[in-house]
């Protein structure tokens, strides 16, 4: 079965991102495929390359990167939600005249169309939310 996962929770404020990570691993372990993982609202913080987690805690952004690398996952960060929260790549840094950028290479910025496409292509779409 083809799954897509929507992450609306930041990696620090709620448990949602961690649950999504565990769920993604369980989906792959069961032999299903993941078409896309879409990060939306505060979930875009999962794409930051600059978050520094205490060493005895799970670094969730880093775990997403490792999982994506291992399974060639498509990690898409909603561009409108991301730029307003200061999660940008080099291209957006140029566009908005910023001197730094922080989106990790494992993630790509794109629009809500990618979420719609994921809903069409997938047998199941599962959302992990967090209250902000």
């Amino acid at each position, binding site marked *: *079965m083809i*799954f897509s996962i929507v992450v*609306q929770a930041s990696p620090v404020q*709620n*448990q*949602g991102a961690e*649950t999504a990570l*565990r*769920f993604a*691993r*369980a*989906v792959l*372990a*069961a032999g*299903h495929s993941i078409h896309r993982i879409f990060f939306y609202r505060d979930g875009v913080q999962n794409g930051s390359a600059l978050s520094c987690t205490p060493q005895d805690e799970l670094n969730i952004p880093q775990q997403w990167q490792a999982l994506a690398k291992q399974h060639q996952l498509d990690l898409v960060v909603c561009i409108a939600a991301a730029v307003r929260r200061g999660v940008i790549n080099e291209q957006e840094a140029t566009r908005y005249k910023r001197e730094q950028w922080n989106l990790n290479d494992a993630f790509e910025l794109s629009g809500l169309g990618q979420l719609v496409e994921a809903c069409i292509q997938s047998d*199941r*779409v*599962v*959302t*992990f*939310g*967090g*209250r902000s």
Partner: protein
Amino acid sequence: MVLHTLNQAPANAACMASALAAMTAQDTLLLIEDGVYWTLPTFASQLANIPGSVVALAPDLQARGLTSDAIESVDDAGFVALCVSHDKVVSWF
């Protein structure tokens, strides 16, 4: 058949009320994250009237030191299996 996930503690009763209003007898409610606090004995009477079945996510119960004898629990693989056995998944948060 819809799988509903709910991650809000009983302190946010409105979230549970919304989920229940959307449930039918064929649906399943999966309690995850702080939603597993609904398995505490004090809320048992409220869960008894839910249309459909109620399940709790085992790792989240374990993380909070809860055991649910009255309510069935599933691990992460069981969560995936519930997604497969239901037509769609609705998340309440």
